[in-house]
């Protein structure tokens, strides 16, 4: 009895030490963000004072006004980003969930061979196809247009298809069979029976693709050259090259670029571990 008690005590001690350690490192991980946030409210001369002023003594919105009402058409960039991301997520939602359902639950001829081929192609680095993709876009007249940023998402990425396939596999076959006996076709079953059962994976899918398209810097760099078409990452990059010493304004741009992701992240966070990870799907 006595021994059990001391073992329990020891366990709680251990948990406290582990908690302290993990939280300490966790706080270290987010310090750059705290610095970004506080710098965005500072004047240019207070940026590098040491010790660091985590709470600016004379907070100012100068950084934000320089960004929003300065030389660059910030709102155009913001709307470009919103437009491209929403279209991309819309496209990827349908193509990934449909393909995922078919690979998991529709017994069509050649399914396994096709899936195996996709699996093999994941080993191929994306660098191999960037030039052919560029050529296809140029032949279609899509270079220097927003379509070059979102079109790829309409075909559904490998990650999303695997994620959704894994989710649909967990639905019992009997559920699908009984719906078939009632005369429902596969499209019907996909939409009204299967989809409502995979909500957490669907949220993960939507979040991950929103994240990737919102943060995409490489595609605009390759495909766009007219500045007013830029999405936020390119716009912020050229803004920061232009304003190289104006750290408050650059950090303000970073804060505003991060905000939508943070909001989406906080709303979807609890789904991650259960769907993204538990399924054995890897991004």
């Amino acid at each position, binding site marked *: 009895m006595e021994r059990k008690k001391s073992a329990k005590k020891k366990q709680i001690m251990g948990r406290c030490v582990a908690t302290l350690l993990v939280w300490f490192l966790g706080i270290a991980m987010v310090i750059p963000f705290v610095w970004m946030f506080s710098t965005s409210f500072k004047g240019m001369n207070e940026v590098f004072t040491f010790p660091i002023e985590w709470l600016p003594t004379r907070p100012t919105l100068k950084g934000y006004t320089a960004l929003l009402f300065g030389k660059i058409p910030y709102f155009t960039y913001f709307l470009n980003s919103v437009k491209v991301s929403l279209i991309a997520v819309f496209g990827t939602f349908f193509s990934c969930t449909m393909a995922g359902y078919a690979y998991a639950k529709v017994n069509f001829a050649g399914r396994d061979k096709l899936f195996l081929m996709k699996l093999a192609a994941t080993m191929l680095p994306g660098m191999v196809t960037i030039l052919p993709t560029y050529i296809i876009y140029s032949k279609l007249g899509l270079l220097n247009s927003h379509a070059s940023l979102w079109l790829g998402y309409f075909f559904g990425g490998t990650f999303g298809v695997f994620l959704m396939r894994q989710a649909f596999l967990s639905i019992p076959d009997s559920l699908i069979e009984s719906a078939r006996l009632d005369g429902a076709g596969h499209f019907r079953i996909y939409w009204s029976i299967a989809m409502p059962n995979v909500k957490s994976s669907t949220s993960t899918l939507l979040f991950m693709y929103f994240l990737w398209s919102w943060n995409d810097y490489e595609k605009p760099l390759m495909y766009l050259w007219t500045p007013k078409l830029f999405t936020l*990452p390119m716009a912020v990059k050229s803004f920061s090259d232009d304003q190289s010493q104006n750290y408050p304004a650059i950090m303000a741009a970073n804060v505003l670029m991060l905000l939508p992701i943070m909001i989406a992240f906080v709303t979807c966070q609890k789904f991650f571990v259960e769907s993204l990870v538990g399924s054995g799907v890897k991004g």
Partner: protein
Amino acid sequence: MTRERKKRQKERKPGRRMDTISGYLLVAPNLIGFLVFTLFGIGFSLVMAFTDWNLVRGYEEANFVGLKNFTDMFTDPYLKACLINNAKLLLVLPIQLFLAAVLASLMNKAVYGKAGVRAMYFLPYVTNIVAIATIWEALFHKTKGPVNALLMVLGISESALPGWLSSSQWALLAVAIVLLWKDLGYSILMYSGALQQIPQELYEAAEVDGAGVVAKFLHITIPQLAPMTFMLTILGVVSSLQMWGFVQVITNGGPGTSTYTLGLYIYRSSFITNRTGYACALAWLLTVLVLIFAIFRCREERKFSVE
């Protein structure tokens, strides 16, 4: 038995045909993307790797040059710099995975408020690379940055302070630190999922044998996490070798060639210096490197599981 199965197949046939039609309709967008962008892309890039294609002149004007692109690689000083840098950057991967495994198993069992703290570790992963680059450029600023200010407080003399991103000696290390920070949360998340699938009885049995925390981690957790480690290693190698957007923003390969990576070199050869055919050949070099690594790791894995 066989006759019965045949019969059943016959009965199912009309259903099967319907299945095939709706199956292909459902995978159509994905399949078209795969055929056009992936399969055509592979073929096109493979052919162009043997030409002197220049993006400005267009591929119609490209001439076959045999193996020239591949033989050029042996004497290319830029490529050599890239491969050395990439190899050094890969050294971060085992550190990152080990840290992630330790942190994930601490979070799994022992930490209060784990959802909150896991979100903190994951935050850098969801952050835009442009934001990351501009934040760390400021933090690493040679004369005014907080990192060096902290080092000075810790007693490092002003002349010995590292120049970080602006010095060819330190830039790669700075990039490696930022990458470690950026990707740690993703590995933690992946390990967290894998940890939940380890049977509890293994730990209970070890406890009966009197195993301590460290022994349990070394002899149960790490071997049980091996498949996930394998996966994360392959993914990490692929993404590390072909990473280019991030280095383009943070240093653009410089100073000099000190942070040039294979991915960045392929991008620059494709779109900036217009040695496009050579870029295709480099992309295939990348593919071969990844495959060699994967095969090597697979064999290693098999050796482990046989033992």
